[in-house]
C-alpha cells in the first residue's frame, strides 16, 4: 500500500504546526514538512528534532525553494540534521548553486522536477543533467509539474521511462497555467491515471493541493489518480 499524506506548506504555508493540527483524525500515513522560505527553516528544524511524528510511516522535508549562494552551506547543514532522522530532503534543482554541497546527502536527497517557469529540471533531458551531478539522488516526481510542462503527458512518460527507477516520492495536485497549485480536478485525475502504472507503487504520495475541500476527499481523489482501485470513491460507485 502506498503511503499518502499532505504537505504542510500546501495546507498552511509556513505554519507547519497548524497544518499538522488540520491532519489530525484524517486517515493518512505520510507528511512532508515544508519550509519553502529560508526564514522558516530554523523553526522547522527545531520542531522536527523535538516532535514525535511516529503516527506517520513516511516523513520528508521540503527544502527552501530559494536561497543565496552564501546561505547554501548553512541551509544544507540545517537540513542534514533532519535528514539524519531518516527523512528524505526534497530540493528544487534551480535552487542549487553548488552541487557538491548536496552530493553528500546521497540517496536521501530527492530532486523535484520543475514547472514551466523554471529553466532547469523540467524535462527528462534537463533532469539527466542534474542527476549527472548528483548521481545518488532520487526523484520527487511532481506529476502536476510534468503535466503543466506538457499536458499531453508525453514528457511525464519520458521522465518516468528515463528516471523512473529514481522515483522515491510523488507530489500530486493540479497546477494552473499560472503555476498555482490547485485541488485535483476530474481532468487531472483522468490524466494522471494514464501514467500511474509507470510510477513505483511504493513511492509515497504527498498532496500539494490547497485547503479548498475536505482532506479526506482530496486524498481519495489522489488515490484514484494513482490507480488505487481500493479508493472509497471507486468502491462507493
Amino acid at each position, binding site marked *: 500500500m502506498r503511503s499518502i499524506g499532505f504537505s504542510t506548506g500546501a495546507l498552511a504555508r509556513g505554519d507547519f504546526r497548524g497544518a499538522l493540527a488540520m491532519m489530525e483524525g484524517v486517515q493518512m500515513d505520510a507528511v512532508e514538512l515544508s519550509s519553502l522560505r529560508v526564514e522558516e527553516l530554523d523553526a522547522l528544524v527545531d520542531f522536527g528534532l523535538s516532535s514525535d511524528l511516529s503516527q506517520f510511516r513516511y516523513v520528508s522535508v521540503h527544502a527552501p525553494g530559494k536561497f543565496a549562494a552564501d546561505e547554501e552551506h548553512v541551509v544544507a547543514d540545517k537540513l542534514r540534521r533532519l535528514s539524519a532522522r531518516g527523512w528524505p530532503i526534497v530540493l528544487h534543482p534551480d535552487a542549487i548553486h553548488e552541487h557538491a554541497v548536496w552530493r553528500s546527502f546521497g540517496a536521501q536527497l530527492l530532486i523535484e522536477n520543475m514547472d514551466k517557469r523554471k529553466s532547469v529540471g523540467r524535462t527528462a533531458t534537463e533532469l539527466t543533467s542534474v542527476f549527472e551531478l548528483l548521481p545518488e539522488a532520487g526523484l520527487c516526481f511532481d506529476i502536476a509539474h510534468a503535466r503543466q510542462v506538457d499536458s499531453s503527458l508525453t514528457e511525464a512518460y519520458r521522465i518516468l521511462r528515463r528516471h523512473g527507477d529514481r522515483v522515491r516520492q510523488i507530489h500530486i495536485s493540479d497546477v494552473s497555467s499560472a503555476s498555482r497549485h490547485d485541488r485535483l480536478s476530474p481532468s487531472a485525475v483522468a490524466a494522471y491515471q494514464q*501514467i500511474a502504472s509507470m510510477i513505483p507503487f511504493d513511492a509515497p504520495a504527498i498532496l500539494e493541493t490547497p485547503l479548498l475541500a475536505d482532506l479526506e476527499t482530496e486524498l481519495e481523489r489522489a488515490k484514484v489518480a494513482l490507480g488505487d482501485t481500493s479508493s472509497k470513491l471507486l468502491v462507493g460507485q
Partner: protein
Amino acid sequence: MELADQDLVSILAARIGAAWPSIARARTRAAEVRERLAVSISDHTSEDTSLVVFGSLARKECTSGSDLDWVLLVDGAANAEHLEAALAIESHIQKVAPKGPGPEKTFGGLVFSHDLMHYIGGGDDTNQNMTQRMLLLLESTPVGRTEAYSRVMNNVLKRYVVEDFGWMHSRNPSNVPRFLHNDVVRYWRTIAVDFAYKRRTRAGQGWALRTAKLRMSRKLTYAAGLLRCYNCALEPSLQGLDRRDQSSAALPLVDFLASQIPITPLDLFARTFLTSDRLTQTAEPFFGAYNEFLGILDDEEKRSRLDSLQYDEIAVDPTYQRVRELGHSFQESLNAVFFSEQNHAEFFRLTKTYGVF
C-alpha cells in the same frame, strides 16, 4: 548526439562517395538564417509562445530566393501583448528575409494551440488550420524558446493516436497510425487541388515555379510524412505494446512520432537509405535530382524565369524542361522506395495496405 542533430545527408554522401553541393549550400544558408533569427527574436518568445518557421528554412533547404513562412504559436493564457510580440517578430523577419508569407495569409501572425489541437477534421478544420497543423508536423522548427512548440506538437500527435480506434484496440497489427496517415494523405491531395485553384485565381502567375515545387519539395514533404508513419511499423520499441491499458498505451507511440519531427525530410530519407542496403542504389538518383533542383532555385536567373514563365513557353523552355525531367527522376526514386517489393518489402506492403484505400 540526437538523431535530429546529425547531418544524415552528409553521412550518406560520404558513405556512397557522392557530392550534393547545392544541398550542402542550402543547409549552410539555413543555419545562418536560423542563427540570425535566434539572436534577434528569442526575446519575443516565452514559455507560452514559440516562433515557428516552416518551409525551406525548416527543411534546411534555403536558397537565395526562399521566402520565410512563420507563425507565433501561442499555448497559454490570452494576452494582449502577444500581438505586439508578433508585430515585433514580423519587423525582424522582414530584415532577414524580405520575401514574406504568401497571399493566402496562412502564415505570418498569431496561431493558437486550441484550434490546432481541437479542430482535426470537421467544418472548423479550415484549409488554413489544416495547412498550419500539417506543416507543423511535417516541416517546422522552433526558433528561440521551444516549450510551447513541443507541448502543442505532443498534444496534436496524441490526438491522432488516442482517437485512432484501430490502433488503440490492437486492430492495427502494423502499428501505422492510420488517422495521422489519412490526414497526411489528405493534406497532399489538398495541396494538389489548391495547385489548380491557384493557377486559376492567379491567372497563371508563378505557375511553373509552383509546378517545380509541387513535383519536388512539396512531394518530398509528403513522402517524408509517409515515412514518419511507416517507420512506426519498423521501430522495435513499438512492437508488442500492451494496449490493454488504453490510457497509457498511446504515449510510447506519441513519443516516437515526436522524436521524428525534428528530423528534416531529406535526413529522414537519408536514414532510410543508410539502413536499407537494397535502397542504396536509389540514393544517388534521389539526392542527385533534389540537389539539382535546389541548384536551379538558387540560380536567380533560372528561378526568376520559372516564376514568370507563360504556358505557351514551357515546351521550349530548357529550365522548365529540366525541372520536369528532375521531377520524373525524383518520382522514380520514390517509386523505388515505396513500390518495390524487392527494394523494401515492408514499405511495399505498407504502401499497398494504407496508401490508397
